[in-house]
Every structure is written in structure tokens, then in C-alpha cells.
């Protein structure tokens, strides 16, 4: 009973729910601000994502006549729920160690594609040709970036599992133990064998977040936001909230996998440290990349993902195997 209550608290307040949303929206606000500064613009205030979401909530919900009503309404809820649950599995080193202590890396791997699937579901249910095209693009892109992600997770799990030896059976899929092992033996981000995997993860981030150069499914100047085209009001707000939660999840996962070090025994200090690391990771892999690139065509993006990040991740996987 207490466990269930605690799990619900972890999904709604910390680290999932309110905290994840606040951090996600702050990241998005900072991202827009920094991008604007890089382009010598002023940019919107940091609270702009909150204002946007609040404005959308006051708007009317419109459902296209030809849309598949149930799927159209269900899609954003589906993506949101997936991310809300997933956020509770993300450890905040030195503050919170994750919802479960076994196999949660696999759970995260299964939950992570849910927002993309929600987008596909919503896009195809909207009955708009732009949504249909966005659907096929999103699916291709997802197939392309999930492969390197799987290899990244495997290489981290294998390396930690091997080092833990008798305590674990082969690969270690518990984030709790992965984080604990790194806190004792040094962060994997500084381990030469894991540097290719870290690079692959940095490349994976813009793809999964759907930002330039991989904003292909929603390509504004080609598909007018693709799957999101027919969405408006609270449903669209739910998509932006999901995206904010996903920002927290992928950044937090990156920190847990590669840089879970803490700098103090006090939890508030560790929390601030975690937030700073998240922001640094976001600025490096999302904002800078976004402002220095244009958009790939879907075939180019697919070819890119199945070659460079996949090769990098494979490199780490092999190194983790032989070392």
C-alpha cells in the first residue's frame, strides 16, 4: 500500500509529474532563448512554454469530421501516460534512486517510443494527408534511432554487468546498480570504451526529440507540423506537455547512464547539480545542433542513423564485450 502510494507520488510530484514538467518546460524555454541569442534575436521569456500551454488549454477542442474520433482523442493521452510513468523510473543521483531496482532500463526502453507512437497514432487518425505522411516519416525515423539506442543501453549494461561479476548475471539492467557502480568507479562518460556510446547518445537526442536536423515528421515548411496539424487546444497542450516530460526523461537517462556523479552528500546540492547537468546536455546536443543545421530529408536521416550512431554504439558494445 505504502509502495503504491509512493509510486504514485513519484509519478506525479517527483521526479515525474510536476518536477519533470517544470524542468522540461524550463529546458524548452532556455532552448528557445539560447537559440534566439545564437541568431542575434532577443527570444521569448523563459516562461513562454508555460504561457503557450496555458493558452492552448483555454482553446476549443476541434475534431475533424473525417477523423477516427476515439484514436484521435486517445493518442495524446496515450503518449502522456507513457511519459508520466517513464519519468518515475529516471533516477536523480544523490536524491532519488528510481522506481524499481531491477530491469528498469528495459522498461524505459519500451516506454520511450510511446510519444512517437502517439504522434503516429494521432497523425493517422486525423485523416489528413499531412498526418499520413508524417506518420510514415516518424515510423522510419523511429526505426532508425531506436537501433543505436538499444545498442547504447546494451553496451552500458554489459560493461557494468561484467564489472559487477558474480552479483549480476551477465548484463546489468538495473539503473540503480548502474548508477551506484559509476558513483564508486567513476562515470562511464569518461571511460574510453564508452565514449563512442556517449557520442551516439548525443546524436540520438535530437532524433528522439524531433528537433532540427531531425524535425522531419513535423517539418513545418513541408508538412505543416504533419501529425500535429489537426490538433489544437487542450489536446495539443497535452502533446507539448508530453514533449516536455520526454525532454526530462531523455536528458535524465543520459545523466544516469554516463554522468551520475554527485558532488555532495546534501540532496539539494545534488538536485541542483543534476539540473545543471541536464541543461548542459540539452544545450550541447539539442540547442547547438539545432542552430547549426538545416533539416535532413527522411532518406538522408535514415541513412545517417543506421550508419554513424549505429557504428559508434556498436563500437562501444564490442569494446564492452572484450574488455
Amino acid at each position, binding site marked *: 500500500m505504502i509502495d503504491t502510494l509512493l509510486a504514485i507520488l513519484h509519478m506525479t510530484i517527483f521526479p515525474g509529474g510536476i518536477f519533470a514538467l517544470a524542468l522540461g518546460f524550463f529546458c524548452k524555454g532556455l532552448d528557445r532563448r539560447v537559440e534566439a541569442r545564437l541568431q542575434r534575436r532577443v527570444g521569448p521569456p523563459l516562461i513562454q512554454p508555460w504561457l503557450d500551454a496555458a493558452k492552448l488549454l483555454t482553446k476549443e477542442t476541434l475534431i475533424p469530421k473525417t477523423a477516427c474520433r476515439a484514436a484521435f482523442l486517445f493518442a495524446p493521452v496515450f503518449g502522456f501516460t507513457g511519459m508520466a510513468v517513464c519519468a518515475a523510473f529516471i533516477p536523480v543521483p544523490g536524491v532519488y534512486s528510481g522506481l524499481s531496482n531491477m530491469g528498469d532500463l528495459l522498461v524505459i526502453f519500451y516506454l520511450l517510443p510511446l510519444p512517437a507512437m502517439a504522434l503516429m497514432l494521432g497523425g493517422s487518425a486525423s485523416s489528413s*494527408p499531412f498526418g499520413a505522411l508524417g506518420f510514415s516519416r516518424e515510423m522510419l525515423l523511429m526505426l532508425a534511432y531506436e537501433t543505436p539506442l538499444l545498442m547504447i543501453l546494451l553496451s552500458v549494461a554489459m560493461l557494468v554487468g561484467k564489472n559487477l561479476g558474480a552479483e549480476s548475471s551477465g548484463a546489468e539492467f538495473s539503473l540503480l546498480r548502474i548508477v551506484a557502480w559509476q558513483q564508486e568507479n567513476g562515470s562511464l562518460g569518461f571511460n574510453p570504451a564508452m565514449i563512442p556510446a556517449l557520442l551516439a547518445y548525443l546524436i540520438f537526442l535530437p532524433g528522439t526529440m524531433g528537433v532540427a536536423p531531425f524535425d522531419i515528421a513535423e517539418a*513545418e515548411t513541408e508538412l505543416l507540423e504533419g501529425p500535429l496539424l489537426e490538433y489544437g487546444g487542450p489536446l495539443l497542450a497535452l502533446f507539448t506537455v508530453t514533449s516536455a516530460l520526454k525532454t526530462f526523461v531523455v536528458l535524465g537517462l543520459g545523466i544516469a547512464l554516463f554522468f551520475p556523479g554527485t558532488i555532495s552528500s546534501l540532496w539539494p546540492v545534488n538536485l541542483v547539480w543534476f539540473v545543471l547537468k541536464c541543461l548542459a546536455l540539452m544545450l550541447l546536443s539539442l540547442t547547438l545542433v539545432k542552430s547549426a543545421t538545416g533539416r535532413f530529408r527522411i532518406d538522408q536521416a535514415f541513412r545517417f542513423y543506421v550508419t554513424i550512431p549505429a557504428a559508434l554504439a556498436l563500437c562501444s558494445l564490442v569494446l564492452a564485450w572484450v574488455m
Partner: protein
Amino acid sequence: MTVMNTAGRSFSMPLGPVHVALEEPVYFHLTVEGETIRKVELTSGHVHRGMEAMATQRNLTKNTTLTERVCSLCSNSHSFTYCMAVENVLGVSIPPRARYLRVLAEEIKRVASHLFNTAIQAHIIGFKSLFMHTMEVREMIQDVKETVYGNRMNLAQNCIGGVKCDVTPELLKYILGMVDKMEPEVEEIRELYTSNSMVLGRTRGLGLLPGEDALRLGVVGPVARGSGLKMDVRKDSPYAAYPDLEFRTIVNDGCCIHSRTTVRLHEIFESFRLIRQCCERVPDGATTASMRQIRAAEACARTEAPRGEVFYYIRTNGTDRPARLKWRVPSYMNWEALGVMMRDCKVADVALITNSIDPCVSCTER
């Protein structure tokens, strides 16, 4: 459900008349198979304003203002060509100073127009920083326009018999200074567009218009020059001060989106050369010639606008209102080439290819 159709059969996709990538309204009916375009149908006419009829209800002087409002980016070319046509019909020849000042205004507009088009290309491929940077550089030429002519888009420089605004020596010096400041910036932009792998990956070898098709369809301006055709009204039938000025006709035989962009970017430097020469060589004297009595006659005139050849035909009947005023704009000729360029292209490239002909819908439909 629509999704089912993407599997093998084709489905139709509307693009426009209101679309982010299009600056002006035009409707593309695309038949799409997966990501590949199988058929393109164009429908236009959304912004028809009946300007040719309006021109016959206004006197010759008022029509200068009207023709300047045909289009925003090549506004100066329209009033320029119109004034030339009227001068031909009246038999007026304009003073040498006016010839140079007209070329000066025309080339300033050309720089702004070409930079705008290249910026939009970056916007379409989602390269926001490059778009912002190009527009920032363009802002300098906008400042020049505002400082010299008082307007940022429609310069209102041409009038029948000469030019309205006399550019003082201080302003000429200011223009030269701004050109010196802009040149390295534009050089940087040119390097970016010709070397950035992201831009090249989206533009090189796409939207092909082979030379023979270009000739058959009669395309003009940078579209023709990007397909290896050496045609430029400024050279072929020189007008105003162009015979006395040195510049090159830029030709690129890549036939793709990238080669058209390259032509535009190189032309900006030729325009800088022309602006410099105008500022240095502009003779002293009157800026306007006096009007003559209007007779019943007909005449035509053509100039090289940023998008290609603009042609004006005028027929007068002895009154101050033209009996007929007809013009043909470059986009009208380039429009048909889209069918060739978009053959079997990807959905992602439609907006890029459309932008590569630098379409001006308000000109074409007036």
C-alpha cells in the same frame, strides 16, 4: 483511413494556397506515392487584382505608382520598364544623370531581392540560423533604401522622363561605404551556401531543368542562367546606363536548385560592382527631361528584373490615359518549368523547387 493508401497506391495532397513555405498564394495539387510526387497540377489566380484594366483608367503619371505596386520585390523594375515604355511612346530621351540613378536603384533592389530568395531557401530547409543571418545582412541594403529613398520596399524612384530623387554626393558616399561593409558579409553567405553539406545535400542535383527544356519553355533570368543559358537583357539589349558599365553575366550549367542559388549569389557581387561604378561615374546635370505632347502610338520596353525579363507594351490614343497597357513578367515564363523540375521529386523538395524559380505570384496574376 488515409494511412492505408501510403502503402502502395497514390493519394492526393494539397499544398497551398496558404502554406508556410509559400510566400504568396498558389495551389499545388500533388499526387503522391509514398514520398514521391507522381503528378503536379498548378492552380493560380488567387490574387488577381485586374491591374491591366486599372491602368487604362488612370493617367500616365498615376500609372507609375500603380505599376510599382504590381510586386514588392521587383517593384522598381516595373516602374522602370513602364517609364521606359512611356518615354519610347512619347519620344523622350532621359538625361544621363537619370540613367545612372535608375541603374543605381535597380541594382540596390536586385541585391535585396536575391538575398531574400536565398534566405527563404534556408528557411525551407529548416536552417533557421542561416535564414536569420542572411536576413540580417539584407537588413543593411534595406537601410540603404530607407536612407536614400525614404522607403524600404517601394523606392518610388522612377518617374516619366527621369528620376524623382536626386542622390546627393554624401548619399553616394554612404552607399559606397555600405557596399564595402556588405561585401565581406555576402561573401561569407556565399561560402556557406556553396560549402555547407546540409544545404548542398538538399539542393544539389535536385529540381533539374536541363538546358534544352529551359530553351523550350522559354525560361528567363536566374532560372535560365542556372541551366546554362547565357541571357541577360542588360547585355542583350542594353538600356539606361548599362552599355557604359562593366559587369559579367553569371552562368552556371548545374541545372539544379543549387546552381540557381549560386547564380543569384554571384549576381549580388556583380550588382555591387554596378552600384560602385554608378556612384563613381554618375554625371552632373538634370534628373528629368520635360514631357512631350501625348500622341497616338505604341511602344514597348524590356528590362532585366531580379527574376528575369520584364516586358511592357503600351498603346496611347492621344489622351493622358493609355488605351492598353500590357506586361509580361518573368515568373509567368518560369512557372511552366516547375512541371519539369518536379518530375518524380520528393514531397520534401516541392517547396524548395518552387522557391528556386523565385516565384512572384502577385506579378504573374496582377
